[in-house]
């Protein structure tokens, strides 16, 4: 696995083409490259075909291709995979080429591409190229536009990319199950002219959600709304990479939503503009300045901003979506004095600890044993303590000294002098108030009824 990753990193795509030939010889099928590391791979700089500015897939990678008679050939293998959601939790998913989501496919406007899809799932599948203009027979809806790909079979999709933009791919056969199991990937069509919509850093990821019962490893595919793992590219904070940029970089973040609810994605710090939608690029005059953009179900959004130095939280603003597995039927304990009851409970359950009396933040601080393969609800330590968020949360880390093409985590931001919130340690004098009237014998004394009305 590591060898493979290093190989991809160092050798690059050209060598992969060569490997493919050496492995399968003169066969017409390009090698299906496998990636199993959950870490973010460096951008795949194109060495064949039209040039473009590659994207970086958050905790993911880009699928290598080979050129054959001017056609870009890709090989996707639909198969069961094991994905680490965050350290301490692995989930059985279905994905492509060793990962869920599958690799990002990057192509250029005008490219003719041929995608071989091999089905190694236990059931039939198809691939639908979400948002891509193509011949109807390549649209991948089983039954409607093509027969399903039976297990063990390989189908070929071949079409020419008409328009640049941000797209997705996912199955359209038993899609409820297959998407609940993580079958999805990003599909990026770069403009023919690399100068068009050029940015310094271009991040992509999918929004996805799973319902994995604590202590288990396979998502419950019948769950409709009550998911408990809210993820980006099937990773939950603290398993999500930071989005690293250099001060002043033009940064683009492209997001596709394949969950069953919308996600208001919010960026702290720099304001951004929505520059791309499902339909393509938005003309400058029509762009919305925002700090939160709602990425609705089945949609893609591209936002752009100029990076400002600092550690900027970047998250879904639905508060439950920045949590990991939590009980949704747990009553609120705030304000309930549990002390003496707790003693009683502890007689029956010796390891019982009082929680929630002061809110849920206790969770972030207490390190208590959890069921196997279960992420704590709120984890992740920042430089000032527990961050208290999980799930759809990451940090945009902008530094002055980041080199171009460097996506390494630069660590925590060092705040310049006098730019950090601080504790007030002065006194709290009583405010001066005007004196009220004093009571005399004519003052009405109101006697309140005593007892029996505590519940009012």
């Amino acid at each position, binding site marked *: 696995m590591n060898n493979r990753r290093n190989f991809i990193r160092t050798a690059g795509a050209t060598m992969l083409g060569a490997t493919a030939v050496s492995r399968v010889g003169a066969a017409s099928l390009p090698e299906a490259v496998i990636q199993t590391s959950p870490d973010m791979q460096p951008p795949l700089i194109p060495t064949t075909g039209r040039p473009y500015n590659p994207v970086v897939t958050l905790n993911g990678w880009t699928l290598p291709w080979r050129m054959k008679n001017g056609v870009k050939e890709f090989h996707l293998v639909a198969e069961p995979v094991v994905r680490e959601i965050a350290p301490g939790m692995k989930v059985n998913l279905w994905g492509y080429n060793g990962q869920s989501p599958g690799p990002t496919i990057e192509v250029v406007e005008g490219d003719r591409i041929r995608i071989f899809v091999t089905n190694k799932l236990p059931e039939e599948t198809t691939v639908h190229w979400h948002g891509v203009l193509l011949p109807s027979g390549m649209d991948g809806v089983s039954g409607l536009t093509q027969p399903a790909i039976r297990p063990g079979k390989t189908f070929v999709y071949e079409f020419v990319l008409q328009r640049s933009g941000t797209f997705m791919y996912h199955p359209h056969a038993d899609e409820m199950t297959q998407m609940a199991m993580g079958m999805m990937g990003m599909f990026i069509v770069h403009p023919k002219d690399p100068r068009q919509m050029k940015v310094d850093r271009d991040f992509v990821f999918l929004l996805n959600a799973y319902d994995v019962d*604590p*202590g288990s490893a396979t998502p419950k595919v019948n769950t409709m709304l009550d998911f408990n793992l809210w993820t980006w590219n099937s990773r939950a904070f603290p398993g999500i990479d930071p989005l690293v940029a250099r001060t002043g970089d033009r940064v683009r973040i492209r997001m596709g939503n394949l969950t069953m609810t919308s996600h208001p994605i919010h960026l702290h710090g720099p304001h951004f503009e929505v520059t791309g939608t499902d339909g393509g690029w938005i003309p400058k005059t029509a762009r919305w300045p925002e700090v939160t953009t709602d990425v609705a179900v089945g949609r893609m959004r591209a936002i752009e901003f100029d990076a400002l130095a600092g550690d900027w939280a970047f998250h879904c603003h639905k508060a439950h979506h920045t949590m990991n*597995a*939590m*009980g949704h*039927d*747990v*009553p*609120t*304990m*705030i*304000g*309930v*004095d*549990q002390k003496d*009851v707790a003693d*009683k*409970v502890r*007689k*029956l*359950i010796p*390891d*019982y*600890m009082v*929680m*929630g009396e002061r809110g*849920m933040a206790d*969770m972030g601080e*207490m390190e*208590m*044993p*959890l*069921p196997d393969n*279960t992420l*704590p*609800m709120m984890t992740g330590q920042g430089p000032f303590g527990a961050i208290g968020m999980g799930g759809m949360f990451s940090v945009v880390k902008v530094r002055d000294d980041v080199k171009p093409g460097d996506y390494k985590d630069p660590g925590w931001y060092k705040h310049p002098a006098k730019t950090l919130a601080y504790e007030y340690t002065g006194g709290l004098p009583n405010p001066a108030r005007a004196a009220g009237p004093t009571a005399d014998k004519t003052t009405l004394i109101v006697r309140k009824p005593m007892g029996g009305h*505590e*519940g009012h």
Partner: protein
Amino acid sequence: MMKTRIMATRAEMRAPHSMRPLKRLAAAGAALFLAGCATVSPDGGFGTVQQLTKERTGQTATWQRPDAQADSAKARVDELLQQPLTADSAVELAFLNNKGLQASFSELGIAESDLVRAGRLRNPSFTFGRLSGNGAVEIDRSILFDVLGLLTMPLAKQVEQARFEQAQLQAAFEAVGVAADTRRAYFSAVAAQELVKYFGQVKEAAQASSELARRMAHTGNFSKLTQMREQAFYADATAQLARAQHQAVAERERLTRLLGLGSDQLNFKLPERLPELPKSAVEPKDAEQTAMDKRLDVLMAKRSADAVAKSLGLTKATRVVNVLNFGYANRSQTGEARSNGYLIELELPLFDFGVARLLRAEATYMQAVNRTAQVAINAQSEVRESYSAYRTAFDLAQHYRDEVVPLRKRISEENLLRYNGMLISVFELLADSREQVSSITGYVEALRDFWVTDTNLQTALTGRSPDASATERPSAKAALAAGGAH
């Protein structure tokens, strides 16, 4: 039935030396009387009972007779009451103290006196008649000996011996029954007492839930409905505990009755827990044969059939002449010299030729034979059933101990982990702890059932029917009475 008395007097019989045969007869009678005389044994036959009982219960039964060592028995009772009771010491106590059992031991004394009486000749009877009229007085005197009784004495003695042995078996049978009842009551009492503790824990968990829910409602975090649901658990748990507490009292009192303890002896101690489950269940070999050889009700039925067979022989022997009285007679008449003679009384089967009695005896015999067969069939079947119950109880108790309880514990551990992750609330945690406790009560009940079925199996193998308790069984005496008919 018509009795014809044939009297031979001096008027009809010439017997010039009438005193001589009378003397000889008296001498022979005295010899026979002495030979046939059975005496009361020093232990009243209780030694056999003790042995039978000890073999079957492991404990020695004692018969508290007025002259016996009542003080030492009382001392032993006091000594046993000092320590927490074990099943064995409870049985020992019951043997010493159960008044009903002592009462049934007294049957033995009654049977023995019958046996002794059967070995003795019926007292000779003396008749005296005086007739007067027309200035004359006639006086008849006669002394009669039960000659036939003398002839049939060996047979009668055998019958009474059988009855006596029957009574010994019966006494052992009662003792084994009391022992079984005591063991069952003991295990039930210990279990009931242990269950009170666990139902107390359930109540405590429910109380914590209820109290917390009350505070939740007070701070506005719970609706009245949710609060009352938690309160309802508590209310139910309280009722459950009250029932368990009464059950413990009832079981203890049942044991108290069997132990024959008075109101000044009520603070006897029971252990906190039932004995552990044995490592493995017993596999009795030749269980049914053992029951045939050892079971007291089987032995009694066999003995009873034997006795009936013997009495059948007796009936055959006496069906023509069943009473023959022979005696000395004399007559004095006014104005005449005393005339001496002898008389023989013979009962003749003029209308009852014995056939009806023979039929009755045969029917009685067949009844005894069939009853014995039925007792044997029941015993064999009971052994099989008891073994199944025993084996099931063992497997169940083991299952609770090795599967259910540990599983519930692991579930509780997992639930605590879920609670740690705020995946479930403290209320679910408490509800789960209630269920965990229930699994323990399930184990206690299974363990109690095991010990009860163990007692039942032992009883079925060597003692008696395990179904009915000794204190509820009137049938044994009826069977004895039927078996002893002759």
